[in-house]
């Protein structure tokens, strides 16, 4: 059996989505900006997709949702254009974000720091969540933007976006949220919650890779990142990616139309898996279950190094993910794991399992068995559970390797 449990990295494109995209490659291929009938032929499908997207996040008709190539582009757009509009050409000089953002936020903030912008990286609590009073205390009258992820890709933990939105609105500060792990997984209602900008991406909810969007409240000003023709009202240039827009709309509708029911189905499977693997001794799961995206588990398994665990799961045809330093190309310890601050060991023993609506009960049962076998094998090899004590003088007092 093959089991894909890395849905926070990317998801399978739903065959229903692929199906609605298909006509827009070789049949209906006109450029939507052209005046002739080839150009207008895809208009109904694009209009439908726009409706699907607005409905899925309950955007107001006065708001803009602009298609981009990915959420990384959306994140870059907000940060770089707020810098241009409000810092270079305004009287602000400060951005507030968190230590646990996606690299497309963190690297862009580092770039802006190099340009002289002050950036505050807020810590998270042991649950991996940003606390509202922390956000409040770091906002100054020079703050141009607060950018805080809606839900974490690593832990699945959901930040108090509604409360942070209220504070930003009160203080008149722009608020952006990277909602990549929220849209399609949990309800996102942009008429109930105040956010100026959100970024999201289709491939996280069974849409195609290579398309994302930026939501802009009240069509407010934000300089374009990509200049060019008059596509999407001049806000983001580049010929409209018709099949992907159509696919994204469909994927969003499929992911959100019965979201409560879908969530509870996924949550039941996730809880079954989480309960079963938590039976193993010396393990712990990061974050309160009720405040987590319903598909995510980040579990630490004492004595089992993350990449080793991934290896064994991979041998069993199970795809998962780890924050382990050893699994990354640069060997750097995972900043999210360290930011949670629980224990250095978590940075090396964390395994992330992320489900989707396509995950089956059989797959969960198979994973439970294989997961337990892998832990048993690796713990048998592990020095952490060895019985014979080292020769006097042969012990290790502390980490001699001085990793981060």
């Amino acid at each position, binding site marked *: 059996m093959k089991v894909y449990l890395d849905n926070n990295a990317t998801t399978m494109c739903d065959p229903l989505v692929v199906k609605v995209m298909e006509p827009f490659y070789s049949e209906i291929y006109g450029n939507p900006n052209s005046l002739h009938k080839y150009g207008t032929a895809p208009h109904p499908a694009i209009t439908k997709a726009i409706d699907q997207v607005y409905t899925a996040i309950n955007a107001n008709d006065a708001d803009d949702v602009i298609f981009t190539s990915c959420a990384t582009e959306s994140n870059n757009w907000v940060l770089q254009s707020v810098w241009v509009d409000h810092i270079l050409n305004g009287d602000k000089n400060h951005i507030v974000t968190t230590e646990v953002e996606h690299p497309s936020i963190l690297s862009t903030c580092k770039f802006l720091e190099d340009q002289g912008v002050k950036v505050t990286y807020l810590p998270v609590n042991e649950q991996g969540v940003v606390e509202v009073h922390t956000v409040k205390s770091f906002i100054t009258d020079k703050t141009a933007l607060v950018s805080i992820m809606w839900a974490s890709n690593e832990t699945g933990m959901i930040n108090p976006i509604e409360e942070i939105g209220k504070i930003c609105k009160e203080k008149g500060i722009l608020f952006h949220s990277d909602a990549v792990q929220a849209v399609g997984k949990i309800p996102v209602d942009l008429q109930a919650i105040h956010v100026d900008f959100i970024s999201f991406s289709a491939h996280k909810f069974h849409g195609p890779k290579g398309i994302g969007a930026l939501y802009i409240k009240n069509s407010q000003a934000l300089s374009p990142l990509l200049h060019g023709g008059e596509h999407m009202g001049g806000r983001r240039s580049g010929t409209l990616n018709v099949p992907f827009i159509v696919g994204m709309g469909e994927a969003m509708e499929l992911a959100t139309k019965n979201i409560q029911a879908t969530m509870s189905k996924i949550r039941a499977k996730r809880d079954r898996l989480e309960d079963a693997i938590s039976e193993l001794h010396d393990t712990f799961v990061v974050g309160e279950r009720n405040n987590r995206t319903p598909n995510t588990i980040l579990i630490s398994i004492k*004595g089992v*190094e993350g990449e080793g665990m991934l290896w064994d799961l991979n041998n069993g045809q199970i795809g998962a993910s780890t924050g382990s330093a050893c699994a990354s190309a640069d060997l750097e310890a995972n900043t999210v794991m360290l930011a949670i601050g629980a224990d250095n060991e978590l940075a090396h023993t964390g395994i992330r399992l992320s489900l989707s609506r396509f995950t089956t009960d059989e797959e969960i049962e198979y994973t439970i068995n294989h997961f337990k076998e892998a832990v048993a094998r690796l713990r*048998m090899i592990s020095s952490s559970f060895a019985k014979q004590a080292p020769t006097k003088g042969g012990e290790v007092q502390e980490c001699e390797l001085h990793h981060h």
Partner: protein
Amino acid sequence: MAKADVLGESLWDAYSNKVTTLMNNPQHQGEIFDAEAEARGNKLIVADFGAESCGDAVRLYWEIDPKNDEIVNSKFKSFGCGTAIASSDVMTELCIGKTVQEAVKITNIDVELALRDDPETPAVPPQKMHCSVMAYDVIKKAAGLYMGVDAESFEEEIIVCECARVSLGTLQEVIKLNDLKTCSEVTDYTKAGGFCKSCIKPGGHEAREWYLEDILTDTRKEMDTATMKAAADAMAAGGGNFEEMTLVQQIKAVDAVIDDSVRQFLIQDGGDVEIIDIKKNDRGIDIYIRYLGACGSCDSSSTGTLYAIESTLQEKLSDKIKVLPI
């Protein structure tokens, strides 16, 4: 970046078959207990290296025949990734049958070579080379425990890059011989810093005592000092090559020649000369001077006097000298 890096490597695909096989089925994982070893009249040594909180930990077991110091049996336990487990397994294999004194000569390079499928292809990608280093460290620790000496004492030289086992001495020598100016040149010449990159500068995978950046800076400083010292010594010995002198030495040398052979005649006529600058270029060495007092208005200052100063300096210091009044 180039074409090969557009997608980037797949970490696990770069492992040798041997690494994969041993990760899936390590041959020497397990424990040896004190009582067992004692019953066979042997001595058990158990050494730890690393810790779970560092991401890698290994425990090495040696059962040693005290009569001839032979390691008759060896096992390991490892908390680590696939390459850490495979490296530990091969290390254990390499220890068995050797005396403690022989085993201590096993390096991480030997471990990595033993993991190769064919001698020409590395067993692991560069950033994983570091996993084999722990195998080497734990051997030294075990040998130290058995012989009652400090593990450090087995290291004859300071190893700066553990992955490629490059010593401080080698690095300094290669930098000097090849006049290396950047860290990436040092990596190209020695392989040091080409693997886990910890030893290049602080802030890498692990903290190190020595960093290539500092070694390069210090060695270059040492090289510059040596050059200056040689020039100074040569001058003190009453000679030296003017062209290789430092600027300050050149100014002093020029001044000395002018003092000895020129200045007295200028002063007699109510003038003087000062050195403004010395510039080296492709044609030779330009010495810029300025006439003072009466010399400033003297016709000869741009002909006869200038010729006299220039030819004196050429004769005493270097025929490449050209004197330019400003």
